[in-house]
């Protein structure tokens, strides 16, 4: 009774005592360390990391790769995410070399739709076919990324970061897919596949307009 639900006086005092320390640390941070932040205005690690996760069409497709891998089980579980980044980079290389790829946006939208349907209906084609499907879509995604790579970005930091972000999106898909081990998890994964397919369909409609 009469219980106080706010932070305890001790916690408030502790927070207040941290404030001056944080202010002092901020003021004393050497400005020289940040003076060259704009060496690559096109972006470095953070820009590269944010690039793949800033487009919903890319995000759902990357997550779907992991989800589908989980549905297929080993060895596809690790083979698809293992093969995706280098093949995607090959697509990026084509774009950077100035080689056009027709229907990139359609291909990206189709990747979400097709892999979403695969997860929704738990389709299990032979491994070579699954790898071929994923690799084909990886080329489209890579081409789009390569074409959008800012000319003044730090090339290696940017590339490394967006490859890592892509890999982490696959990991999210795999972890979601592992929910199939639990009761109700299978339904959850199939629903996630349906969501991916719907997003893919929406982007396909936009790409075909």
């Amino acid at each position, binding site marked *: 009774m009469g219980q106080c639900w706010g932070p305890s006086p001790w916690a408030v005092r502790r927070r207040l005592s941290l404030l001056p320390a944080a202010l002092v640390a901020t003021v004393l941070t050497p400005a020289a360390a940040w003076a060259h932040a704009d060496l690559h205005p096109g972006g470095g690690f953070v820009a590269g990391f944010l690039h793949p996760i800033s487009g919903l069409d890319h995000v759902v497709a990357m997550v779907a790769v992991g989800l589908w891998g989980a549905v297929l089980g080993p060895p596809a579980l*690790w083979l698809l995410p*293992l093969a*995706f980044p280098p093949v995607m*980079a090959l697509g990026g*290389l084509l774009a950077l*070399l100035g080689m056009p790829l027709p229907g990139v946006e359609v291909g990206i939208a189709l990747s979400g739709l097709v892999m979403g349907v695969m997860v929704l209906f738990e389709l299990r084609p032979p491994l070579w076919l699954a790898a071929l499907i994923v690799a084909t879509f990886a080329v489209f995604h890579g081409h789009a990324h390569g074409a959008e790579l800012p*000319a003044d970005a730090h090339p290696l*930091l940017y*590339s490394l970061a967006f490859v890592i972000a892509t890999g982490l999106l696959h990991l999210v898909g795999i972890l979601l897919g592992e929910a199939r081990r639990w009761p109700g998890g299978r339904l959850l994964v199939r629903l996630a596949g349906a969501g991916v397919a719907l997003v893919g369909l929406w982007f396909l409609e936009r790409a075909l307009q």
Partner: protein
Amino acid sequence: MSGPGPTATLWSHRGSLPLAHLVPTGLGPWGDGMARLVLQPLDLLLLVALVLLAVQSGRPWLDRLALVLPLSWLVGGLGGLVVGMELPMALPCAALVTAVGVLVTLGPALRLGERFLFGGTAVLPFLFGLVAGSSLAGHGGALPALLGEAVAIAVVTALLLMALDPPHPRWLALGLRVVGSWIAASGLLMLGWLSRQPL
């Protein structure tokens, strides 16, 4: 007309772009050199890829790698300082990182020969050190910067070797291959970027 031909000039200009020099950190040349490993991470990628390749193979000379790799890089770097002009090696270096990344991705199934592996872990750091040293040669405090980066390389190598001591559980073995595929992908993109740069 004297001087290098247009092809040589273009090639050297292209080669110097992504391996550019030192970023002042405010910590002096020693700290700038250490930071270079992270801010210009081609050397870092090579070192990670070589360590992964070595630990995947589980060779008995693994503990010697902690000494061989940084030392070889440092000797190359000192050679680069002596050369004194920036070597246009960005494309070959990116291609080599890509190739080592591909080898890591393919995993221990490749069964690479002992000499090939040990030679690679000694020769490639030397080459990369040579390029790094040559790019630092024009800077004031190039030697402490080179030493700083060599120390950073030694620390990272030792930490990686300690953390990845074989035998590996299955998930970690797969994780190493995934990291290899990321390195290969980054190297490929770097190659594309290098070819795209306006000269």
